[in-house]
């Protein structure tokens, strides 16, 4: 199915949860995610199922160095 991730359309497998998407994109869980303008809680990542045409914003979280 097609979703918009950080303003770019991408094809992802049907029925993915947010955790599944992160694994699909090879991203770690320490990531901030907005789905259709709503920021998800960490505890929602395993259960929140993505839908066709969802708009996602994904930002990686990192500190200093």
């Amino acid at each position: 199915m097609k979703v918009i991730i950080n303003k770019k359309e991408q094809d992802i497998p049907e029925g993915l949860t947010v955790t599944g998407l992160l694994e699909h994109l090879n991203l770690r869980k320490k990531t901030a995610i907005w789905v259709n303008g709503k920021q998800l809680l960490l505890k929602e990542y395993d259960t929140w199922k993505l839908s066709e045409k969802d708009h996602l914003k994904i930002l990686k979280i990192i500190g200093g160095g």
Partner: protein
Amino acid sequence: MMNFPNARILEINLTDKTHQVKELAGDIYRNYPGGSALGMYLLLNDLKPGVDPLSPENLLIFSVSPLTGFPISGQSRMTVTTKSPLTGTAGDSQVGGFIPAHIKGNGYDSILFKGKSPQPVYVYIDQEKVEFKDAKNVWGKITGDTEEIIKEELQEKNVEMSVIGPGGENLVKYANIMHQKNRANGRNGVGAVMGSKNLKALVVKKQKPQKPLDMEGFKTLTKDIKERMKANEVIVDTSLNGTAGVVDFHLDEGFLPSRNWTRGYLEKGDQIKGDTITKTILKERDTCFACAIRCKSVVEIEGKVDPTYGGPEYETLCTFGSYCDNTNLEDICYANQLCNMYGIDTISCGATIAFVMECFEKGILTKEDTDGIEINFGDGSVFEKLIPKIACREGVGNLLAEGSARMAEKIGKGSDKFVMACKKQEMPAHMPQMKPNLSVNYAVNPFGADHQSSEHDPALMAPKDSNDWIWSNLLADFQGCDAYGVLDQNKAKFALETQKCYSMMDTLCLCQFAWGPAWQLYGPKDLVEFCKYAIGWDASIEELQAIGERRINMMRCFNEREGFTRKDDTLPERMFISIPDGPNAGTKIEKEDFELALEEYYKLAGWDKETGNPTKETLKRLGLEWIK
């Protein structure tokens, strides 16, 4: 209320080779409990305004804290405090490793050097025994040789030491103080102050670690360390790739300061990623006293790079890498080694060379000015020619040894536009366009641009049930943020409140990877527990924040005495340009937003908006009326 321990201060007069131990009463020490705050307290009390930083009148102060030397991760840090020859401000530089734990083990919270030895010396401390040793055999030697020769002379291997290399001896404005050949009090030119005193090394005998007052309570913080680490993805990555892993993230997002900060993206940047280093040249990970994280990089390139000098951290990978548009890892690693051998700061050194590269590109400098050396972007082969020259102030090295800001004053021709520094200190490699709270912090920070003086903005983007969000909101109530490049009142508040927290950690001499208000191994509530179990200190988050705030205000007062005002709280104009290309092209901070955030910061800090200095009411609130 507990009896806070007194501070034991070993005061060493290098002029007449005498020493004495002074005690600071616990009820006073509790307000300035170690490290950077204790150093500033001593500096404000004992140093007259207007002193030349490289004169015998300046003080050089090594301080640890009541929490140093306990068997837990991230507590073996030390601050060097002085008046900085690079910035002219309060000088402040941190180091980790093993010497902090052993300074505490010898019974001292602070070792204060005053005066100047007539001849080069090193000082050897074994508890109450303080010996002045002739340094003629090590003066002029690189740091590694110095450590070896001193151990042979003392016929003692159980020592730790802080040493300067030729950079410090030759008063390079950004000379550092090295420890174990691969850890540096890197910033603010503290090594030049040590060199100006003819002090080659501070050597301490290793001693037994401190024992917590409440061992059973203490174990509640340490017993689950493996699980605690495993549950924290940033710490897992830090253990795997070290600070170099930050290159991966910043490159992927297009916020890796490149080509003297004209870009945020580096072509072929994959070649200097942490992941690349781990897979190719990493020999092992080293650690500091009692720390489980093991983030220190040790790299080896046969025939070229000696692993005993460590390996490049994130900042060094940028200053000699992306700043210089250079992706040759071998050249970066060798530059890191040379800086550690000669005792000069990798951030200021690499950034100054990047400045020279831009001067070359613009035709302001030619090889006629640089001893025949072409210094072009992308050519890392110049590092091994320039670094020894800088350290020994030979030829063009004498010019680069002054740092980019002073170089621009001498060169003229508009080169000041290419200086990427605040208060004459070259900038660390975190772009305010991505992390806008750093724009405020870089500008107001009393000792110049510093990336370890506040939490970085992504904590405000974190999910509301993550530690990043929960811990940072223990300091104050913040609003969430959903994008890079946002600079508003919320960010000004975040800059100030997390600056207080980081300031407190530099006071308690805590590693900011192990302890902190967001992604670290231990959070603010854990720190309160650490204080209680280690020394019986009934601290609170509010008391700890006030300690951090007190230190910042002491530094601003020190700077005020030296003539600094709000007009010095500026950023290079290049901070306000859009990121021109890469994944986040177009991200920028508006100058107007920066000025408004700065106003908000002064208001929240209780500083006069005209002068930028603490008001009398603020000083009274913090118990600092004694300063002015």
